């Protein structure tokens, strides 16, 4: 397990950078919501497109654009894809996006990792509002990161990333990349990886 490092680059951040980072996390969290018409619309896809452009990620950009161009009903498409990838199981093909599945040696929900992650949210002064889902769903973790960064709490952010988020996300991503997946989710997972991995 990597030791803690202090990300000194954050100490000279401007307010604008803080806001952008926080918004990025919120945006990434949205990609991991069950698709609904309020959020999954033209503005959203435009935002994703422009994000990829700014990063210069041509491959991912093409993936996204090709899909958008050839699908008559992106929302319906995503609903099926999300259900198949993250809700129903299919040995080899479902990758439930919860830390405990990958970390706790049991492959169950509500494992010890769930407890530890929720305790950390609380220690930092936050908690989940939707208690139907286990607290370690990826979207809660990303929303939490958004909350921390909006308050410029970068040490907490780095600690959470290295201690809680990356260890399970890397295993999750590895499983995800084993097969060809829906392009929207391939791009989303890549973006999450980019914005959460340790700087070299």
């Amino acid at each position, binding site marked *: 397990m990597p030791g803690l490092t202090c990300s000194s680059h954050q100490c000279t951040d401007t307010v604008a950078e803080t806001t952008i980072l926080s918004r*990025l996390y919120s945006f990434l969290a949205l990609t991991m919501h069950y698709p609904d018409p309020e959020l999954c619309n033209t503005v959203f896809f435009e935002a994703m497109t422009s994000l990829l452009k700014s990063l210069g990620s041509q491959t991912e950009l093409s993936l996204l654009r090709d899909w958008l161009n050839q699908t008559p009903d992106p929302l319906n498409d995503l609903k*099926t894809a999300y259900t198949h990838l993250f809700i129903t*199981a299919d040995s080899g093909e479902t990758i439930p996006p919860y830390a405990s599945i990958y970390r706790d040696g049991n492959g169950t929900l509500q494992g*010890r990792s769930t407890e*530890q992650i929720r305790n950390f949210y*609380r220690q930092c002064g936050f908690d989940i509002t939707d208690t*139907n889902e286990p607290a370690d769903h990826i979207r809660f973790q990303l929303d939490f990161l958004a909350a921390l960064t909006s308050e410029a709490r970068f040490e907490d952010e780095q600690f959470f990333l290295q201690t809680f988020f990356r260890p399970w996300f890397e295993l999750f991503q590895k499983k995800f990349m084993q097969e060809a997946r829906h392009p929207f989710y391939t791009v989303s997972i890549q973006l999450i990886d980019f914005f959460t991995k340790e700087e070299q």
Partner: protein
Amino acid sequence: MATNLTRRNFLKAASIAAASVPLSQVTAKAQSGVVKAPLVSPGSFKNTQTAVGGVCEMCFWRCQLVGKVRDGRLIKLEGNPKSIDNGEAICARGNAGVAMLYDPDRLKYPLKNIGERGAPKWQRISWEEALDTCATKLKTIIDRDGAKGLCFFGHGSHAKYLMDFLERTVSTPNISEASFFQCRGVRDTAYLATLDIAPDENVDMANAKVIFFTGTHIGENIHLSHAKNYLRGLEQGAKLIVVDPRYSASAAKSHIWVQIRPGTDTAFVLAIMNYLIQNKKYNADFVEEHGEGFAEMAKGIREWTLEKAAEECDVPASQIKEVADLMAANMPHVAIHPGRHTTWYGNDFQRCRALACLTGLLGAIGCKGGLVLPKGPKGLTRINWPYVPHEEDSVLRDVADEHHFSPPGTPTELLRDAAISGKPYPIKGAVICGQNIMQCMPNQEKTIKMLKQMEFVLCVDIMPTDSTMYADILLPDCSYLEKSDFIKTGQQWDLGKDPQQYIAPRMPLVAPGFERKDSIWITNELAKRMGYGDKIPAQNQEELADKALAGVNLSLAKIKAEGGIHVQPGVSPYDDIDDLTVHFYNEDMEDEGYPPIPTYVPIEQPPQGFVRLVYGRTPLHTFNRTANNPWLVNEAKTNPLWVNDKLAARLGLKEGDTIKLTNQDGVTSPTTTTVKVTPGIREDVVYLYHGYGTKNPEMTQAVNRGIDDNSLITKIAVDPESGAHGMRNNFVKIVKVS
């Protein structure tokens, strides 16, 4: 990801137009918490609350539980110390309820199938959309074809309220419960025809001098307090006789093991009765007082000498005599176990009737050690959907004029035939709740055919079983840990002790997660949309339970305050047999054209090169119901095929070899299992645990594990009296794979 930037550079240079999203999902709340994880778990007794009122349903025995909960997370399940039934003990499956609760493969949201039945493509939908769709589709069928156009397959407490709604108020007679037609229904109706009571498994083994099992394999079958009952009997010196082609867990504790040829148990029992009668060793006083048609039966079974039965059953005549003498020497304190899963060969009514007659012959009813019905609490209010009589000519067994001694509901085979042929009327709507019909009804092809011709299939379940692959709409039920849909009552399991009774209503130990809903809520929502809203007997599950408990001046809250179980003094269950009649000869049966006395009906023997496929229980699983549980899977990863050691040697099979099975109809198992070589089984039989070989890849721990015995049960046998299936009439060849 392909990019030349690092996050750091990106943030410095960024000017993006990301959608501005308010942080609605996370709110600030002041909380304290500990983060550093200890390497050692503190144990279930540290920093946990004890939630009371659990009633297990990993199997259907329903032990009473408490849960150790930490911050809303269930850590462990234990027996409720207040229980006079299981006490603090629970079995492996009971303990594994925690893993079931948090199984990531469990159904979570309502799903719509936008693919095909059998090859589903799921899309999550809202409850609103799901319920509207179900109600519309079901109503369309009812309006056009009548209520009889709907059929229902259900099991367990999950299913009762929905089943009652459909059977009583919507008024379809096409209800086929697996627990009746593929399990214990034939036993119940056979005993009703003999003793006017349904026996369940109510033998007082704890106080018996002799315990007699045909096929019962307690130890591999675990019903907790029933196992305690059995063990107490053994502890107190009861002699155990086990009739089984296999050296089962019970045979291993037996004093006499009768390694019987499969299918001949009735002959064995008739020979015992004949011997006792001819040698005047039966309970003459009891028979005099309670028997009816004794002389006719005695005459009718004369042919069953010890020698004739020995030949038929492939056991020594001296052994049959030994068993009979042991029973005679100890009567009436002889526990003749009625069995539970009794749907073996399609001649099972007669076998169960023979057992019931033997019980009467020994006078082993109502006395210590005999068949004794426990006296549970009385007075709970009956709450149910209002009953509307079934449409004339809609009851299929009446139309067919068959199965006059059928359990409640419609024999499965009649139902499937009607649905597939469309005669005498169409059945176009199927509702399946908590029953995995693909694994419990013989001949899977026929089940698929039946489902495919439906206009609408609704499944309600907690796991994505093989059957759910055929649903149009699939709804996520709550598990027993998350709801309040059953009231368990009873007497203490050792009937010889001071009588006590208990009432244990099921209460949730944790809140349901995701969007799971209890089946009472689901049924009510459907009822409202289908125009039956004014007939609803209880608005929610708590009200249903409280209304029932009101009859005895109790409530969920009161019983919760008592630690989850209400215990009260009981009454002695013994000697309540004044009104008992033992119908050795049943006139009604004769009138309907069935044998009036218990009669042996021989079965087909395996063809050359084949052996009979017999299935049974493992203590680690409740057939396919628990097949996905990672803790249980870890203990019993496959269902090894028991093969006699001499047979194995002839076939060139060794312990651990991987094999497939092919049956007499040329059907081959799609999956494999391993061989267990043992002298403890006959050469003409092979045995494995039922419930393996899941096909649905959505059950990630269970899929393709072991062999599904039901995939090889293609030849259908139906018991004429009851309409129940017989499922041990298929024969297999063992095919070595590696």
